Every structure is written in C-alpha cells, then in structure tokens.
C-alpha cells in the first residue's frame, strides 16, 4: 500500500503546490517568449532592464506573463447575450480546476501528494482530457462561429493526439508493472530511465505533449489569422484570465510529466541522501531544457491545417505508440528487465 504524508503537511502542500507550480510556469512562459523573440530577431521582455527606463519598468520583466494575466483579471468580463451563460462561465474554471487537480498527482522533484496512489496514471489521463473537453464546451456555448469552428478543431486534434499519448504512457506501465507514477520513478531510479529503455514511447509522448501545449505547428485551435482566437474568441476579462492561467500552468505541467515519466523524475537518491536537495536544481534544469526544445519547435514551424495535423498524428506518433507497446512486451518476454 502507498504511504502518504501526514495530514498537516498535506494541507500545507495542498496550498503550496499550485503556487510554486504557477511561479515556475510563469518563468518557463517567460523563457519561451524571450527565446522565441531572440530567434525571431526581436528583443522580447527584458531580463535586466536598462538603467534609463528602470524607474518605469522595474529591474526585470521576468514576470511579464504574470502581469499580462493580472491585467486581464482587472478588466471587465462580458458574456455574449446569445451564449449559454452557465456553460460559458463554467468552462474556464473546470479546465483550471482539473489541471490543478492533476498537479497533486504528478511528483514535482520527487515530492507528490497523491502520486503514490495505485492508479495515479489513470487519474492523470482522465483529468488531462477534461481540459480540451471544457474548451470545446466553452467554445461551442459562446454562440460565435469562430468559437464553434475552434471547438470542432479542438475535438479533432484531441482525438488525434490522445491515443498515441495513452499508448506511450501505458507502455511504461506494462514494463514497470504498475499504474502508480511514484512507482514508475522508483523503477527508473533503481534501473535506467525510460528514455533509454523505451525511446519510442518517449518520442510519442513528447510529440503529443507538444500538441497538448498547443505550440506551433499544433496551435490550430487558436489560429489567429483564420478563426480569431478559436474557443477563446468571446472570452474577456476574468474568464479569459482564468484560461490564460490554465495555459501558463500547462507550461509547467508538460515538462514535469515528461521528466517524471522518462527522466526518472529528476530524483537523486531518497530523502535521506545528502545530495537529495540537488534534485530540485536538476528538475528545474531539465524543465528549462524541455521548454527550450519546445520553443525551438515553436519558432521553426508554421501551422498545420487541422486535417494535415490529424493525418500526421495518426501516422507518426500513433505508429511510435504501437511500437512502444510492442517494445515493452518484448522487453518483458526477453527478460531484459
């Protein structure tokens, strides 16, 4: 049976995890913006503000993604008269709540609230599906044609990337013979990381997570030149702010999940190990590298059309996912592990 933290510590962590995750996600979002800007020949938000404008801008603009969200929270929220008010207003909150709930199941640098739960992988897979679902509901209840088209695209894209993602993740579960994400990390720490053991699964999950993060070439649902902002077209003020918080948190969640599944969770030894504190540094370093890779993909590709993305997802990552499952069986049968 899994062992959980004491109740007092659980309550503290319950509050602390979303705050820390959000703070880190803002920094990752800043990294994405800054590096993309530099690669495109722009300046991007200042890391160190020049002396002349420091009185206006402050010393650093690392928190620029946060300021953008705060601005939205101050603004007036308008709901279209023809929209389904209940669904329209609930959708962003449901999306954010499900993402925050997912965070409790994902170990962050080895620490997790419910990661030890026997079926935590299943729970994560389910909760992750709620995000696109609520976006679809929000978009189609907004009574805007752009929202409807965006929702339709979101549905098609989710169908395309969800299958290879599940295949890739459950290939690991087959190898390690567990459905608990903490046990997966333990398995990797005792033997070798899954990125070496099952690179097919790693690639399939990485690509599909990029689809989840909605970076180019997969930002089809919010293609601004085609359908304004897709499901978010009619959102404004606080509701849009909540959606933005959710999107920013994804920038933290995606690298964390990948590190946990394939890089051994960035854990050095156990709590008693003197080098254990360094695992936090390792965790952040690995996240930064993953965000960097995502940024480079984002910068150097244009947008797919939705049917092209669907075809591509059902060709390349799906095949990888199937190979990953076969590979996992082969490892078991041959007795390598």
């Amino acid at each position, binding site marked *: 049976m899994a062992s959980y933290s004491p109740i007092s510590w659980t309550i503290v962590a319950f509050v602390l995890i979303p705050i820390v995750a959000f703070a880190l996600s803002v920094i990752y979002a800043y990294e994405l913006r800054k590096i993309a800007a530099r*690669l*495109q*020949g*722009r300046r991007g938000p200042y890391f160190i503000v020049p002396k002349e404008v420091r009185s206006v801008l402050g010393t650093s603009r690392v928190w620029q993604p946060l300021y953008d969200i705060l601005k939205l929270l101050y603004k007036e929220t308008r709901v279209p*008269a023809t929209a389904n008010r209940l669904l329209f207003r609930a959708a962003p909150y449901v999306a954010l709540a499900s993402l925050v709930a997912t965070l409790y199941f994902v170990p962050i640098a080895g620490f997790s609230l419910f990661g030890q739960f026997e079926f935590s992988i299943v729970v994560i897979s389910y909760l992750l599906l709620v995000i696109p679902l609520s976006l679809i509901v929000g978009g189609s209840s907004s009574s805007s*044609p752009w929202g409807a*088209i965006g929702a*339709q695209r979101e549905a098609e894209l989710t169908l395309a990337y969800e299958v290879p993602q599940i295949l890739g993740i459950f290939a690991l579960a087959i190898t390690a013979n567990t459905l608990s994400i903490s046990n997966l990390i333990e398995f990797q720490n005792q033997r070798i990381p899954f990125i070496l053991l099952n690179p097919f699964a790693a690639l399939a999950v990485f690509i599909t997570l990029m689809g989840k993060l909605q970076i*180019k*070439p997969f*930002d*089809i649902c919010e*293609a*601004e*030149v*085609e*359908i*304004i902002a897709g499901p978010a077209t009619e959102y404004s003020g606080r509701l849009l702010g909540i959606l933005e918080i959710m999107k920013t948190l994804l920038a933290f969640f995606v690298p964390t999940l990948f590190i946990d599944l394939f890089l051994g969770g960035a854990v050095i030894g156990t709590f008693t190990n003197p080098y254990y504190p360094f695992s936090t540094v390792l965790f952040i370093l690995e996240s930064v590298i993953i965000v960097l890779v995502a940024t480079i993909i984002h*910068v*150097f*590709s*244009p*947008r*797919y*059309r*939705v*049917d*092209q993305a669907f075809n591509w997802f059902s060709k390349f990552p799906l095949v990888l996912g199937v190979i990953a499952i076969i590979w996992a069986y082969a490892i078991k049968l041959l007795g390598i592990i």
Partner: protein
Amino acid sequence: MSLSDQVRTEIKNIIGQQDAIETILPNSRFNYQVSTDKLGSIAQYLRNSVKARLAHISVIDMGVDGFDVVYHYALDHLEKRLHLNFKVRVPREDPQLASLAKISEEAIWPEREMMDFTRVKFNGNPITDHLWLPYEWPNAVESATEEKNSGDGEKSVTLPQNPLRAQQSLILVGPYHPSLIESVYWRLKVRGEEILDAEIKLGWNHRGIMKLFEDKNYKRALTLAERICGICHISHTSAYTNAVEQIAGVDLPPRARYLKTLLNEFERIHSHLLWFAVAADLIGFKTVFMLAMKLREDVMDIFEKTSGHRRTTNCIQIGGIRFDISEEDLTHIERRLRHLDKKTKEMLEWAQDHPVVRKRLEDVGVLPLETVTRLGGVGPTARGSNYKVDVRWSDPFAAYGEEYTTWDVVLDNGKDCWARTIVRLKELLVSYDICYQCIDYLKKNPGPYLLEMNNIPAGEGLGKNEAPRGELMYYIISDGTNVPSSVRVRTPSYRNNSLLREMLRGYSVADAPIIIGSIDPCMSCTDRLARIEDVRTSKVAILSLKEITRRCDRNGKLFSN
C-alpha cells in the same frame, strides 16, 4: 502581315470601311469610334479569334453630349505595345448598353462599377448586386417607381433557406479580420470547414480619387496618384507619368530611364518581401514574418537614403526623376542589394525544404490557366498559372526594353499558392539583376535626368506599368489645358480579386487566408455599415450603425416582434 495590321483590317471590315474612324496614337495605341450595335461582334472577334484581354471599361461623362464608354482591349501579350480603345457614345437621356459579360467575363466587374458610379446601365450583366455601393442602395437597374417604394433606407431580404434548418452556414470575414491587413468584406458560405461559395464586397473607403484628378493640374495630380496605394506609390506615379509623357510626346533622357527602372525595382523588392512576410504569417510562420520584415528594412533604408522618405517618396516627375543618385550612394545601394540577394536565395532554399510550408501551400487555391484567361488575371497571380503577362516585357517603358536591360519573365506551371510564392521569390532575384544592370550604367554615364516640360497638348494617353501586383493602367484624356479632362485608373488587384471566388471554392476555412493572401490583395477600407442576420425570422436588414443604436432596446434586441 503583322498581327496589328490584321486586327485593324478585320475591325475596319466589321465597322464598315466608310464609317471606321481610326485615330493612331503613339506607342501602337489605336482608337476607334464605334456604334452600339457593332460592339458585340467586335468583342466576339477580339475574344474568340484574337484572344485579346478586355483590360477595363471606363465611362466618361461628356456633359450634355452624353457618356463616352471606352472599352480598353490589351493585345500587348500577343504583340508588343498593341492596344485598342473602342469608344461608344450613349445619349444622356437613356444611357443603356448591352452587357459584354456573356462574351467576356472580364466585363462583369467594370460594368458593375460603372453601374454603381454613373447612370449608364449595362443590360444583361449576370450579377446585379452592388459592388461598391452599400447593398441597400437603390439599384440603378431597377425602375424609378421601385426606388420610391423602398426609399426609407432599409431593405429586408428573405434568405433562400432558413438558417436553423440549413446544412451550411455563413461566415462573414471582415471588414475587420486579423488575416487581412486592409479590409474587405467576405461572405463565405461553408459546410463544416469546406467553403461552398464566396462573395466579395468592396467600397469600404471609396475616396473618389478619379474625380479629384479632374480639379488638379498635371503636377499636383502626381501627388494624388502617389497616394492611391500605400505600398506601390512609384508604380502609380510611373504609370501616370507614362500616360502624360505619351500625350506630350516626350522621350526621356537615358539616365532618367535607368533611374526610373531602378526605383520601380526597389518598390517591387520591398513589396514582394512584405508579401512574403504576410504570407508566412498567414500560415502561422511568425519567424519568417519577422525575418522577412527585417530584410525589407534594407530597401526602406535605400529609399530613405535616396529620397529622404521611407514611403511616398515623391521621386517620379513628369519628364524624369526629381533627384539624381550619386555614385557613392549607388555603391552603397549595390552592397545592400548583394546582401539581400544572398538572403533571398537562402530563404528560397529554406522554403523549398520546409515540409510543413510545402504542405500548406501545395495544391491549395489551384487556378487553372483557362480561368485566368477567362477572368483576366494579371501579375504574379497569372504568371503562377503560366500566363505570360508582364507589362515590363509586353509594353516596355523606361529602361525595361531589350536595348537597355536583359532579363526574363518568371513563369511557373504549378497553378497553386506554392507556384505564386515561387514566382514572387524568383522575381526578387530578377529584380536584383535588373538593379545591378541599372547601377552599372548609372555609375558610368552621368547626364540630365529631368526634362523641362511645357504645356501638355490635347490628346489621349494609356500609360501602363507592372506594379508588384500586376498590370496597372492609367487612361488620361487631355483637352489642352493644364488640368486633365479625365483620368481613369485600373489597378491590378481589381482584376485579381475577381479571380478569388473561383479560387476559394472547395477549400477549407483554414486555407482561405492564404488563398486570399496569395494574390496579394491591396484595398483600402472603413466600415460604415453593419449586416445583421436574425436566425429566428430569417430576415436580413442592413442598417447604418447610427440606426442600430437608435433602434436597439436595452437588451440589445433589434428585431422586436
């Protein structure tokens, strides 16, 4: 027997030898006075036997004498510089003509324009909707009694199908939409994401520039011509001066010719780079957008160095160029161009190798050669479908002729958005080559670059220029005073926009921006009207914004019943 002699004899036969009044203008332009009944057979002959292009139809108000309807036929893609103008006089009391739309579909747009702006009616035009005027404007073709009945500014139209039960929906793009920098109003009829039909509405900012030309003297009108387009000002002034110089019968000094060519090519480079940036943005490639805009800054710097302005440089004058370019500047310009040349080649290779770019552009917006010739496409859009029309080649002015510079027209047989991209990128390379040749000449041969101009005599001129978007045409009539009697402008986007309907059909909404973008449309716009469709009653009302604010109750409901 050359084509021009053959065509002229045949036309004289159609009109009748004794009735035929032919005026021969410089640069192989021929004017004919035709009666209304002969027009159909002439159009049939030119369309079917000669394969001439109907470039434009202009209507000139002659006061009590009536209206002069001028049909401009361009045959320059068959024989260099050959143009035929047919003038028809219609009486003021009953200005009616038979439409040529059945013979050549190119006539649909000009005829709709003329019906919107003058009282001349073209009977038999298949589309009677207004192109420029608001939809609810009283129709020129309708009788006067009907106008009186619907004169309260509101018109209700029953939709052919109830939207609640419809299998297809209507998507309105514009006048403000992120994919279009300038605004135009599109109505896309879609099923799911597939476009079934498209309709365009122009006139969001009709400034009446052609009328303004008639109050300004030739030199001031130049400034006006420059302000028609924000991107291709040199093309407009070049076409205008070409027409005026034709009337005056002057020959530019060689240095002015080379300078004019050089400036025109700068404009093409900057415009194509801008288009490339915008096209990249339309398929979601922000990085290439940024890099192409950065490259474009080189050309803008050249403009600033030579004229002192980045845009609207006011460099072309009647009879030459306003300023000379010194040798040091030419060296500097050549260095910048070499850099651009290298970067453009890199970009061409990069675009050719990128899998997603190819996937988004290939087999999208296919435009068969037959459609281009039928609807009269011009510029890179037509050349992407292997239709050889290029004013620089067919009606050479300045230093574009064979005796001055050597270059080739870029053609591609791909017919899709990818072909149009490649044509524009290769045209950039051709432009650099022309620039090098001009710079080479200008460095070695100093001389006069601006002629002293005297009075402009009475006459007619048809000035053309290959703007970055295609064939640009100015038709100027002078009556011997210092003010032009009338000026008519036919822009390249005017022709290419009419192709879009055919291009959009059958593709998805995601492809619409790049298809619209692939012809490089250039429009101006302001919105003064709103279109409201009520799903419950299937009624459509078109009201002014003021009207809507007045009539809406507190819940924002317009249709209260």
